[in-house]
């Protein structure tokens, strides 16, 4: 006989407002093997927990049911509570009277009835629970940071400063990310490069940080504390050790190609550095363009002849690196919505309609125009410049219903920079709403209007077309209620923040969830904002949602703390509620192996029989394997068939009796 204690929570008026607690208590007392019942206004509070501990001792309870909220909310709280009173923490069952009952019902009588049934089910299950012991695993104290933008850089530096080893992997030949493309940053107008490049250098010289640029993660196996990661270091064709970064090779290369870094506004060579302050400063050869690779081994080789350090290596091959990591920070950033989707804005055919990032490159002193704002069509200075906000953002028809968050601010900043660079110019900004929530943000936008004379027009642009060498921007001023037209020399489109196009592939490699827009999902939007649901994998920066620089840095720091928290202990306690295969019963069909989303199941031989086996450190306890196992050879610890069947049968006992249908004896 079990000795079950039932603790019914009011949750203030959340539960007690809809459920009649007194009736519930009465009913709970009548359930078999329940020896103690009590209620509490807030069971999760310190006094509520104390009262559970006291009851366990006084009534010699060996099982506890807490009837309150979702286990997602407080299961951990109450497990700790009963553990401190000497019970195994897994001898707890929660009846969700809030989310499953009081919040979704209005009728007091029916809600009370349901609450009683939910408690009955929880008792039925708790009676059959067995103690579980967490699995302990060693932790590999080295972190992997994916993405070398500001978020990745910050996370790597923070983890390193706490004394742990970090490997920073960046897909491009340099770290820096989008921030390195920017000119000034809002609202303080700090020079982006001035605050970023010192951090880039710090990464390069940090002894705890291994920097792998021009590299990508190919495979991730394992689990928290012990990820096995395969990284492909793409052939740079330049020896990283020998190269002094003098740049002679770049000088001599005869090929001129549009620069991706400058979004086509400038040119680069086939051997190049994306920008002069690139880290590392070692150039890379674009094998798709270089004559040696496109026309033949004997062709050109000008860079090789020019190199004083003999660092050019056309024969270099991709290198595959395998490392073990205890934790992973994903900081892969964002991409920009392609404005070509808007035919009414020219669909990319007008040279003088540019994206905001192109404007950013143009206004940057280290950019392709040396910091001069010009009309790309003829190189002249523009007078009227129209900024169009929400290009892609807030446009359900284009697949992006969300607000990109940063465009209002960078557009205001660009209008300000325009006026500073070209005092004769005039900025017109078409916006829908100005979203300037943030420290000194609203003030900044006000200043752009009052001091820099930017004209804000509330309304979306409907069409842009050429008339002579001007662009006609057709919109409406919804505040004045009249249609407006602006004759512009240059139009800047504030394109939406989108996820990286290959984020679903990366999500599959990492086994983390992502949302319908390709942004990685956090474990809890409020309380676990930088964790993915997969333990040991954390999120930083704009790969999770559109973020500005302060937010990216803040989330990177938060993710770093989470990593350090893991590394602070030598062993990890892993959830024991996982799958277990009964080799005797297993018929070896291996359907479980197919369905396991965590690749936790492998084939094993027992007396020459083929059977499935679960790696307990990888298993996350999702239960998919148990669902497909027709031989019922897989047991979910804490969710065994007898436990679940009793729970299911509990509320139907009377009905089943009436129908003379019998459920398994529980």
């Amino acid at each position: 006989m079990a000795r079950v204690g039932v603790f019914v929570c009011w949750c203030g008026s959340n539960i007690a407002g809809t459920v009649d607690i007194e009736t519930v208590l009465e009913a709970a007392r009548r359930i078999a093997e329940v020896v103690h019942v009590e209620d509490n206004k807030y069971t999760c509070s310190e006094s509520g927990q104390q009262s559970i501990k006291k009851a366990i001792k006084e009534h010699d309870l060996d099982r506890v049911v807490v009837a309150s909220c979702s286990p997602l909310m407080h299961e951990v709280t109450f497990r700790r509570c009963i553990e401190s009173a000497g019970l195994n923490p897994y001898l707890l069952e929660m009846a969700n009277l809030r989310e499953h009952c009081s919040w979704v019902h209005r009728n007091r009588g029916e809600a009370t009835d349901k609450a009683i049934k939910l408690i009955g089910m929880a008792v039925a299950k708790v009676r059959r629970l067995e103690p579980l012991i967490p699995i302990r695993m060693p932790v590999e104290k080295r972190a992997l940071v994916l993405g070398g933008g500001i978020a990745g850089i910050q996370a790597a530096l923070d983890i390193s400063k706490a004394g742990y080893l970090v490997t920073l992997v960046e897909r491009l030949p340099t770290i820096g990310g989008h921030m390195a493309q920017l000119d000034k940053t809002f609202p303080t107008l700090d020079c982006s490069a001035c605050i970023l490049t010192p951090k880039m250098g710090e990464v390069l010289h940090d002894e705890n940080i291994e920097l792998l640029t021009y590299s990508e993660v190919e495979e991730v196996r394992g689990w928290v504390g012990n990820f096995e990661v395969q990284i492909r270091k793409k052939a740079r064709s330049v020896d990283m050790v020998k190269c002094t970064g003098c740049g002679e090779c770049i000088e001599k290369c005869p090929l001129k190609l549009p620069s991706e870094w400058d979004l086509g506004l400038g040119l680069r060579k086939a051997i190049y550095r994306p920008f002069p302050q690139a880290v590392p400063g070692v150039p890379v050869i674009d094998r798709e363009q270089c004559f040696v690779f496109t026309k033949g081994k004997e062709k050109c080789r000008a860079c090789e002849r020019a190199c004083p350090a003999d660092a050019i290596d056309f024969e270099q091959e991709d290198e595959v690196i395998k490392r073990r990591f205890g934790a992973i920070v994903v900081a892969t950033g964002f991409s920009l919505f392609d404005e070509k989707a808007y035919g009414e804005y020219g669909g990319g055919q007008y040279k003088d309609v540019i994206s905001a990032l192109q404007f950013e490159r143009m206004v940057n002193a280290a950019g392709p125009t040396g910091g001069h704002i010009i009309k790309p069509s003829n190189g002249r200075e523009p007078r009227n410049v129209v900024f169009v906000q929400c290009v892609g953002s807030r446009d359900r028809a284009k697949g992006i219903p969300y607000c990109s968050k940063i465009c209002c601010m960078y557009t205001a900043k660009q209008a300000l920079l325009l006026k500073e660079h070209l005092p004769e110019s005039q900025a017109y900004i078409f916006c829908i709403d100005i979203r300037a929530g943030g420290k000194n943000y609203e003030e900044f936008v006000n200043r752009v209007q009052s001091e820099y004379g930017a004209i804000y027009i509330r309304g979306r642009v409907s069409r842009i077309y050429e008339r002579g060498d001007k662009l006609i921007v057709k919109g409406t001023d919804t505040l004045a209620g009249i249609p407006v037209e602006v004759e512009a020399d240059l139009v800047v489109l504030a394109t939406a923040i989108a996820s990286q196009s290959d984020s679903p592939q990366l999500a599959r490699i990492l086994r983390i969830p992502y949302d319908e827009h390709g942004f990685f999902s956090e474990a809890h939007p409020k309380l676990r904002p930088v964790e993915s649901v997969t333990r040991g994998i954390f999120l930083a920066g704009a790969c999770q949602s559109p973020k500005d620089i302060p937010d990216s840095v803040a989330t990177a720091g938060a993710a770093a703390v989470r990593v350090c928290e893991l590394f602070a202990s030598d062993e990890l306690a892993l959830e024991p509620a996982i799958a277990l295969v009964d080799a005797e019963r297993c018929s070896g069909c291996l359907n479980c192996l197919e369905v396991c989303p965590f690749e936790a199941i492998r084939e094993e031989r027992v007396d020459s029989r083929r059977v499935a086996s679960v790696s307990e450190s990888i298993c996350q306890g999702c239960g998919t394997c148990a669902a497909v196992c027709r031989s019922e050879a897989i047991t979910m610890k804490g969710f065994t068939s007898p436990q679940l069947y009793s729970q299911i049968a509990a509320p139907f006992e009377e009905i089943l009796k009436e129908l003379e249908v019998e459920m398994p004896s529980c």
Partner: protein
Amino acid sequence: MRCLLVEEEVHQFSNLVKALSGEDVSKCYQCGKCSAGCPIASEMEILPNRIIRLIQINSKDTVLSSSTIWLCASCETCFTRCPEEIDLVRVMDVLRRLSLEEGYRCPEEGILRFNRFFLASVKNYGRVHELGLMMKYNLASRQPFKDLGQGIALFRRGKIPLRPQRIKGMDQIKGIFAKSKPFLEREASGGGGR
């Protein structure tokens, strides 16, 4: 102009429009792209985005007595541009119908007259007899020679026949008109203004 939130339920008018047109105007967040693209916006006293706004705030009288709903040429630019994919053309159609049904005075009498002559021509012949339509309309609007020059030019090139031509399936045309009779009758008797 009457200001919002009358004693009635505030969603009454938008619900009515939704029931009749299938379009949910509450999705509109007033970006104004419909008005920005509208080729007739410059002629409109109330821009299309404001019509939607007025529906949202239950301002039925203002909407149903506006000229905007009659000036709309149903070109669908607004619908094409709308980020929320609200079909303003259907909404406008419903508004015109409601305006007539509920006896609002049409501020664009010429347009209403033209529509009626147009329908009468379709009812009689199964298609429009351009010459007859224009003559009737111009006479009624007391400018009988308005389109004379263009009319002659078109006539010379054989673009507009002198006599009306009936189509074959007149039975079906009759059927269509019979089905819409209740509405047309109400419309005919519903004049009077408000």
